[in-house]
């Protein structure tokens, strides 16, 4: 009898789910379970249960709003079927027309980050200055310290916005890229063939 309010509620989890819906609709970026727990003043385990409930309510084809796990947190987005209407309402500058140079730079930063402009230039063979500036402006990468313990080139990492734009739960969702072994061997053979021709 010391907590009468809890007794009145028929389904406490349902009440918590409504609270989470409210938090997610006012948030402008994905919220982690910890952030939700702090704001809802409840246990993280119960938050996860309630999130499952919210996810059932806000699913593709059932609702115009969809709950998704993205960029290390939970967020509402528009249902895919509503994309044409959303596109008529506004455009998305962060995603618009990423050049090949920008995508390669972004890939290098995502896989090797934090890394510096010289790192990117070494791999791509051309200066990365304009691509890096472009990605910074779009908010897809951000500065993350400097090389050599602070004295060297500025290093960059991808931002939560990057994960969100690309629909990634986290960077660990990026596919492994070590299965190009066959191609590496092929390149090596070609080089050897050229070298032999020269010495012959």
């Amino acid at each position, binding site marked *: 009898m010391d907590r009468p309010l809890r007794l009145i509620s028929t389904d406490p989890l349902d009440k918590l789910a409504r609270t989470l819906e409210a938090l997610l609709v006012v948030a*402008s970026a994905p919220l982690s379970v910890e952030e939700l727990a702090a704001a809802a003043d409840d246990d993280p385990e119960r938050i996860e249960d309630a999130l499952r409930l919210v996810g059932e309510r806000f699913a593709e084809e059932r609702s115009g709003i969809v709950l998704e796990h993205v960029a290390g947190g939970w967020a509402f987005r528009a249902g895919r079927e509503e*994309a044409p209407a959303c596109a008529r309402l506004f455009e998305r500058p962060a995603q618009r027309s990423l050049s090949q140079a920008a995508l390669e730079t972004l890939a290098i930063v995502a896989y090797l980050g934090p890394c510096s402009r010289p790192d990117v230039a070494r791999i791509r063979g*051309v200066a990365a200055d304009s691509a890096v500036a472009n990605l910074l402006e779009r908010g897809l990468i951000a500065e993350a310290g400097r090389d050599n313990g602070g004295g060297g080139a500025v290093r960059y990492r991808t931002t939560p916005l990057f994960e969100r734009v690309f629909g990634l739960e986290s960077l660990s969702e990026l596919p492994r890229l070590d299965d190009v072994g066959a191609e*590496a061997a092929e390149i090596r053979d070609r080089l050897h063939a050229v*070298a032999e021709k020269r010495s012959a």
Partner: protein
Amino acid sequence: MIVRELELDLDAFEGPFDLLLALVLKEELDLRDVDLAGIVTAFLERLAEREELDLEACGEFLVLIAALLELKARALFPDEAAELAELEPEEAAEELARRLAEYRRAKEAAAWLRERLAAAGDRYFRLGPAPCAPKVETPLAPQDPETLARVLRLLAQDPPDVSLSHMALRFPPVSQFLERFRALLRRRSRFDFETEVGEMTRLEQASAFLALLELRRAGELSIEQAAPFAPIRVSRLQENNAEDERTAQWTVRSA
């Protein structure tokens, strides 16, 4: 067709080819910023405009662009170029293959991102400022209405007038120096201006100099200076005290 006059319109540079070469050689333009493929395209376009193949121009262009490519490659791999040169052919091929594979991986990753981006084309979400962390509450101390009234009363009062006295320079009256120089010239027929005013402040010196000019105009003394910044010698001309009273009232401020 003259290769050196080839007009370029690149992101990093706009102008004739020879100026680009000059800037690169003077290290005023970083080759790493220059799109060399753009130069090749510009040359090919110019070449295509002409009916005949200009072999001489092609040869010259090849030499120049090859040199630029080598410089750019060295700039991109400053230390590693030296490392590569020391490697055995076998190892060098190995190292090159490793680098090509690394770039291949980056390209593959970029392709994956491109697909991913296209697949996410119908995912719309709200963008806003950084996640709103729970705000720390700053509770106000209990307030007394009378305090508020007191503060408002203070605001209603006119602030004291700001003193501007320090803004105006105060010149000592010129008249005091007129008298002083006249007295001096009654006793001595000549004196050094610097010695007389050496101890004074800058403003006093300025007034004293004005007095000197005033006396000179009245024809009471003559001024000599051997060279710029040399001592100013003042000597008595005649005993003429007419118009004294009028000039004595003269001050810098009334001028």
